[in-house]
């Protein structure tokens, strides 16, 4: 069985930990701590999340990053040896997108591996559709996929699509 490492990243509050918990077939290693400032949720990841799932003949090891910039040293550590990364953004909060775009540009400039953008919270009213987000990020439409991170089926479909794209494109997912 092929084994790959996929990093799950994106700004704070987009659902990275939720994404991994929804799909992992092993108990997830979490490093959630109570947040002392208002970030829109009670806890925050301070080191990493880890989970794993078998999809077809591929075992995916999922490493989630902290979203907050002061933990950006972990981004670098976790990206070491990654086959690719999933960049999650909050579709229901367009005001978070400029910051997300800057973070994505940071990743794109640093890591020459395939990635896919996951537009989370598609179940919420007013969520931007994935093609709007693709246009905002200047990415081809196929590089942004909508999902609901709390829903195992949605996360599974998303990861299967990412694996397909990696096979088809064989390299840089962001080049249309």
């Amino acid at each position, binding site marked *: 069985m092929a084994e790959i490492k996929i990093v799950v990243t994106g700004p704070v509050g987009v659902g990275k930990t939720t994404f991994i918990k929804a799909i992992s077939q092993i108990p997830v290693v979490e*490093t959630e701590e109570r947040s002392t400032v208002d970030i829109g949720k009670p806890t925050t990841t301070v080191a990493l999340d880890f989970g794993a799932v078998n999809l077809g003949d591929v075992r995916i090891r999922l490493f989630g990053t902290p979203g907050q910039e002061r933990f950006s040293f*972990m981004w670098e550590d976790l990206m070491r040896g990654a086959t690719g990364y999933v960049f999650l953004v909050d579709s229901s909060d367009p005001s978070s997108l400029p910051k997300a775009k800057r973070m994505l540009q940071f990743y794109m400039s640093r890591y020459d591996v395939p990635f896919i953008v996951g537009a989370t919270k598609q179940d919420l009213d007013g969520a931007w559709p994935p093609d709007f987000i693709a246009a905002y990020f200047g990415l081809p439409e196929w590089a942004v996929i909508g999902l609901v991170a709390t829903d195992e089926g949605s996360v599974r479909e998303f990861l299967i699509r990412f694996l397909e794209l990696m096979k088809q494109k064989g390299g840089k997912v962001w080049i249309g």
Partner: protein
Amino acid sequence: MDRLESLLHDLVSRSPEIKGAVLVTLDGFPIAYAPAHLTDVERQAAVIASLASLAARSTKMVSMGEPEEILITAQDGRMFVYHVEDIAALGVLTVKDITAGLILLKIRQMLPELMRELKDMINVGGGGI
């Protein structure tokens, strides 16, 4: 200088082997540190919080309970990290050649006092840190 900083200052100033001490929230913000000229405190705070959290996950995973003390020995020094109950973490930086027992004793003696001050701070500030 507030009471927490003064406790850290006392620890550092009484032991030449101790180069610095940083008390941080578990989500990685500095609360207090010594000496005053210690640099890069914000980044140190984030790293100390990550270390404390990872250590807790590591020991719980193998049914060892909560970590009491983390020691990292590097080429040019040592770093100790302590959980201050479930409120904060304390990072202490020392030179490499230390009389470990003595240093540990000094740190451990200070921890209950640090804990009391932190709790007072939370009570006064209504859960503020």
